[in-house]
């Protein structure tokens, strides 16, 4: 047993999360309805503990700890993502407290599933082997399928869960097929060995190209990149809003983290090939996401398309990393993706939190029209939404601008000024639909004949979530240095 002592220590945060998840699920039946909040607090406590451990685990930033004979790696890169994921999961739990009660689906095992999904994501971000990463992906996805269908009384929620499951399983199959081909090529599923096999045998083998394409397709499903985005709008709209927020932020961040590690550490030798592929995917993604978002009337659906578009922007950073030349190599591109996703987490989580608790007579107001005249009824809530929309549109001095700044700088540095120009032109398109929300809030008068006016139902937990999101959007807009240096240090262990 002592043989695995060091390995288990490296995985301590994951173990804590899994154990807590099981504990929550076991405790759920013997906890009375009134005391289910305690399960949420138990989960929060586990997250806080893990945050401390992850922070303490790596004193030296450029240290790379591998465990279980190179299946798992704990480095500064995985630490960046884990800290982000703890934050997102914690805020989701805080948001869920009022939201799940208001929706009358306050189930104890919900928190267990959040933690299980989180443990899957943590495995994804620190996996150094394709199979480890695949297992993490599946753990995350299976938990998310259940959470999507949690609102059993709503057909939309069930439909979303079924759709998500079928398409998700399909994409997992493609990913697994790609992994198996790569195993056939390299004789291993370890990223380091795959990289050395590609280095030794060149990139002419069609097998490795096919495998790369299949893995790219599998990940594109998880990232909701066009043309593998079809599930996103339905699932985002149908799932309980707190779950949507969690999916849109945490699952996207974890998928990008694993995706970056697989393609840079494992398939870095093929970057000339895959960067071409992702130029195409990023352009199509941000064009389709932004254009289709314009015609949406449901704000959750609109944000679903907007999250597709944001995946397109992040992919531009990825292409820049693949095309990176000169002394800095791909570092600016990779760091820009991390900065962008961290900032994206704050603004998207905040926007979904606001939508979740904007309620009219007990029902969630999820149409854009429900925001009509909010500035007159609740000026502060409207102003906070204005901040999130401006940030999503990338207007300075919000954090969204800083995110775009780094992504497009990386693109220009990699000689992709034209790509940055296209992306920015579609950022203008996106400004149209974000500003439409501002317009209905500030410039339309409330409909006097409406039965129940949608109001933001405030609670301490919600205020905490919104305060964190607002502080993130404003603070990183004015002073991004801590985030930027954290991201830059975290990519140092790469390659």
């Amino acid at each position, binding site marked *: 047993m002592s043989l695995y002592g060091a390995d288990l220590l490296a995985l301590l945060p994951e173990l804590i999360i899994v154990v807590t998840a099981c504990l929550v699920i076991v405790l759920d039946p013997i906890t009375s309805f009134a005391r289910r909040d305690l399960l949420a607090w138990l989960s929060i406590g586990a997250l806080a503990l893990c945050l401390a451990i992850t922070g303490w685990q790596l004193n030296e930033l450029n240290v790379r700890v591998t465990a279980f004979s190179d299946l798992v790696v704990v480095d500064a890169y995985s630490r960046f993502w884990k800290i982000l994921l703890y934050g997102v999961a914690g805020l989701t739990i805080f948001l869920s407290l009022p939201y799940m009660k208001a929706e009358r689906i306050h189930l104890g095992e919900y928190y267990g599933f959040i933690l299980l999904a989180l443990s899957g994501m943590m495995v994804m971000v620190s996996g150094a082997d394709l199979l480890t990463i695949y297992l993490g992906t599946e753990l995350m996805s299976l938990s998310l399928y259940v959470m999507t269908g949690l609102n059993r009384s709503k057909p939309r929620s069930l439909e979303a869960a079924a759709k998500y499951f079928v398409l998700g399983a399909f994409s997992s199959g493609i990913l697994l097929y790609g992994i198996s081909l790569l195993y056939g090529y390299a004789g291993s599923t370890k990223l380091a060995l795959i990289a050395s096999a590609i280095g030794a045998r060149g990139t002419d083998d069609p097998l490795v190209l096919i495998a790369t394409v299949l893995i790219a397709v599998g990940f594109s499903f998880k990232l909701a990149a066009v043309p593998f985005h079809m599930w996103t709008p339905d699932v985002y709209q149908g799932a309980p809003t707190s779950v949507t927020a969690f999916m849109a932020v945490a699952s996207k961040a974890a998928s990008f983290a694993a995706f970056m590690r697989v393609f840079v550490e494992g398939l870095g030798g093929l970057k000339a090939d895959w960067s071409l592929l992702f130029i195409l995917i990023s352009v199509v993604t941000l064009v389709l996401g932004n254009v289709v978002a314009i015609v949406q009337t449901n704000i959750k659906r609109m944000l679903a398309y907007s999250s597709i578009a944001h995946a397109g922007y992040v992919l531009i950073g990825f292409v820049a990393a693949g095309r990176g030349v000169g002394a800095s190599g791909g570092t600016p591109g990779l760091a820009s993706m991390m900065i962008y996703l961290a900032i994206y987490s704050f603004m998207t989580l905040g926007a979904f939190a606001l939508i979740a608790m904007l309620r009219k007579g007990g029902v969630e107001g999820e149409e854009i029209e429900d925001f009509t005249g909010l500035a007159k009824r609740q000026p502060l809530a409207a102003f906070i939404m204005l901040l999130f929309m401006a940030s999503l549109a990338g207007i300075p001095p919000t954090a969204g601008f800083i995110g775009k700044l780094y992504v497009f700088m990386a693109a220009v540095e990699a000689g992709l000024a034209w790509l940055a120009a296209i992306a920015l032109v579609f950022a*203008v398109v996106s400004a149209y639909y974000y500003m439409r929300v501002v317009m209905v809030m500030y410039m339309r008068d409330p409909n006097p004949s409406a039965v129940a006016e949608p109001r933001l139902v405030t609670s301490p937990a919600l205020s905490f979530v919104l305060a964190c999101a607002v502080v993130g959007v404003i603070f990183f807009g004015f002073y991004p240095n801590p985030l930027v240096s954290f991201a830059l240090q975290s990519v140092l262990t790469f390659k």
Partner: protein
Amino acid sequence: MTSSFPWLSLLLVIPLAGMVAMYFATESASRWIALAATLADLFVAVPLWWIFDSQTSQMQFTEHVAWITVPPINYSLGLDGISLPLVLMTAGIMPLCVLASWSAITTRVRGFMAVLLIMETAMIGVFVALDFVLFYVFWEAMLIPMYLLIGVWGGANRLYAAIKFFLYTLAGSVLLLVAIFVLYFYGGHTFDILALSQGTYPASMQTWLFLAFFAAFAVKVPMFPFHTWLPDAHVEAPTAGSVILASILLKMGTYGFLRFSLPMLPDASRFFTPMMVVLSIVAIIYGAYMALAQVDLKKLIAYSSVSHMGFVTLGLFVLNQQGIEGAVLQMVNHGITTGGLFLCVGIIYERTHSRLIADNIGLAAPMPQYAVLLVIFALSSLGLPGTNSFVGEFLVLVGTFLWSKIATAFASVGIILAATYLLWMIQRVVFGVPSPHHLPNLKDLNHRELATLVPLALLVFLIGLFPNPLVSRMHQSVTNTIASMSRVKVAPTAHPSAGGIAPLLADSGEGLKPQGLSR
């Protein structure tokens, strides 16, 4: 001269402090707080006029604080002879905007005043920023406040006008961001505006950068084919919004040309001079013709703005001392005169609730003071000798004459047309014979309204009769701009990291020939 006292930061902070104070104050007190904040800003700005050293083209009152470490983006501020008049004008116009909104804005007063104060910070920031990214942040930061200003407190068709303004200006400026990054990687990894102005860039790349700059600045000016947002925005905006748009926002476009396009991209500027001159002349004549046809006073002045801003871009792009000095002078003059005209329209709209010329005929009898001031601003706008615009337009035309006599002849047509539409407007609005049931009992200007108009009217004559203090302060900076344009073009070999652009354009560089310069 480097002053240790952070004058410029103070200018930026005072409006924001006023905004914070407003949060704790009552709705009605917010008017007084806004007035106090804008006046305090003016009192800080005015001494700069005398402290400013007109013997040097160096940036003055500079401040430099590191903001973002990677990449190096700094909070650098500074003033030269070009930005000094614009900052003073901004600080001077804003209290008038607060006064003009005193009784016109009745709903959500606190929000309105807060938006005005954010705008003031952002606009002054644009004129004093010496870091390109900082400039861009200020440039974009005013989009949402202005969007709200038009969309919340505007007229009947405000939603359309607001989003049109927003998308037009945003679409123009996003390409600027890409251009800034390209400059960063070519110009030695810096965003410092002065350092980038010293750099030299391959001719082919200058062409692209110029076009990207052009997209941002030409929309803001607005130059001829991109002007369609302006009449809508002006007509729907509340009076203060129109004044800010006309007096300050439009100047940001021409300021951008002067601060960035000319010194950073001299070869492309020379290459595009014919196009810019033609577009300017088209704007002058087209704007004037459109103004002639308007029945709405605000629209008439909006189109006259298109025409007058044509003179400014014309002066800039004939690329000689007289032209550029005239252009800068004309930026200030247009701010004063057109601001005054929009204030006049706002005042009459508060009384008759109509901006149509037909509804406001014969105001000289009931409102003699108003009529006098309106005539002064109209005469200034058409460039009567003795008023401010005459000096500016004259300098611009002299500069144009040195470049091309034919262009001068065409541009002069604009002056004649300006006289036509303005005098015709005066003839009807001031001296027309009202139909009996119109104009029931109009009160003449009250003290508050006089306080908004008289300072501008005084400036009309002050600059018209004694332009020299203003011109002498900008002289060194304009000379410096022209000098930096005539430096030897050394195109560095293409930077490897920007390979996306350079090879694409490698063959188009030969087309750039220096055009005639007076100096």
